[in-house]
């Protein structure tokens, strides 16, 4: 595990050197500015709008952080051949891939934490309790969803033949992962069993990100913190599905020819 952690930390350092975090931080700061503007538009509902758009910004920043981190790593690996240099050292392939996933997650956590801090400062400046307990819980679950997305992106970066293809597949999986729960509900009303079955299969196979979306019921979080099922199942799902996808990615990665 030590090797994985060392690789992850090196990846974070490397991404920082690539100015990825600088660009993302500027985007995140811009998003927080947009949150302030949109909250202002909401007038009396400023607090609600500030929280909702704040969480949306956190989710969007998480998506771009993970995607960009993996895309840059894949580009360096395939185009600049950094992988060959890395394999000279006594590390296993699985450690490289796991380190890459963990590195992207660490960067995601850094970015999301700084955004939450920025929103807290914004709330303090405007005299609003923007970042309360419910907000923090919802943000933690968005980060958990982001960690799963890191595994999904790593999986596609192993599977796809080019950098744009990997980015496209990952983006598509991320978008689809927000729709499948509602698609299942929608198709329940249909008479066609085959359509229902196909959608249910899609729901099982694709990563489900709406399970981590607690922000749609933000007002209910505080009163339900003792109800373990709501908060426990998504984490268990993320662990199991992430483990499965990482296992498949490692299996393919072990046999990948560079």
């Amino acid at each position, binding site marked *: 595990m030590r090797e994985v952690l060392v690789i992850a930390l090196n990846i974070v350092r490397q991404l920082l050197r690539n100015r990825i975090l600088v660009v993302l931080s500027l985007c995140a700061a811009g998003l927080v500015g947009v949150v302030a503007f949109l909250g202002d538009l909401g007038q009396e509902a400023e607090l609600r709008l500030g929280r909702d758009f704040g969480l949306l910004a956190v989710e969007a920043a998480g998506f771009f952080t993970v995607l960009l981190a993996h895309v840059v790593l894949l580009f360096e690996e395939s185009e600049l051949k950094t992988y060959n240099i890395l394999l000279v050292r006594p590390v296993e392939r699985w450690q490289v891939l796991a380190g890459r996933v963990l590195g992207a997650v660490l960067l995601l956590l850094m970015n999301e934490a700084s955004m939450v801090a920025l929103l807290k400062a914004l709330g303090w400046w405007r005299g609003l309790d923007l970042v309360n307990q419910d907000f923090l819980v919802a943000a933690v679950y968005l980060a958990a969803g982001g960690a799963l997305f890191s595994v999904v992106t790593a999986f596609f970066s192993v599977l796809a033949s080019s950098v744009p293809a990997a980015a496209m597949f990952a983006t598509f999986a991320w978008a689809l992962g927000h729709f499948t729960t509602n698609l299942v509900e929608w198709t329940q009303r249909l008479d066609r069993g085959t359509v229902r079955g196909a959608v249910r299969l899609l729901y099982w196979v694709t990563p489900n990100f709406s399970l981590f979306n607690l922000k749609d*019921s933000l007002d209910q979080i505080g009163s339900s913190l003792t109800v373990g099922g709501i908060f426990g*199942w998504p984490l268990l799902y993320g662990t199991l599905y992430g483990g499965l996808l990482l296992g498949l990615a490692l299996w393919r990665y072990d046999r990948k020819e560079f």
Partner: protein
Amino acid sequence: MTARSSELAPWKALLLAALAAGAVLALEQGSRAQLAWRRFGSPLSRALPQDLTRTSLLAAMGSQSRVAADWAYIDCLQYLGEPANAEDADFGRVLRLYTEVLWLDPGFSHAGREGVSVLGWGLKRPIEAAELIRSARAWDPLEARYPAYLAALGFQRKLDPAGVIEALRPELNRPDVPLQLLRMAGNVYLQAHDTDGAVTYWRWVLQRTQDPLTVAAARRGLEKALAMRRADQAPAKPKKAR
């Protein structure tokens, strides 16, 4: 890439199969638990309102209904804030816009109450206001603040300003009352030509709020009510002999 399923050690294949089964189980259980927990469920479980925008439908399908409701609410405020929309059948899309907000998130009761205030006492369309309340209550029957508005609309139809204000009094006293209601409830006095009632109401509003728009509306309302009272009290001018 040369990976084949036969190259996967049996124990690894078993482990991956167990992880897949566990993931499906956790997904099913988690979805069920969250469905039972969520107060309103997905917007798609409610009847689709007329003229629903594609953006809202897409957002509802993509599990972003709350933020889409916020976006739709900004649309409402912008629509009301544009004077040119008075020519659009006297702000004719207000009911549709606020219904869309509540369809996306019935828990956004502030928007519902504000929409009812605008329709009922701003645009004087109590039938549409009652329709908005009916939709809101159908989607959120536990919201305890709508019945007061419904009762006030009943008094409004009978042109009973005291009844309207009495029904809305608990709501008007709340710190989170929609400011649109504060700005518009005084109009019912003038409609019924109760200038004393209007003067008392607007003076009360001026003491109660510091919101610049509401203060300006209260000052205008007070001036209008005082002018009407002066006109009522002035002795009738004798007709000039031809």
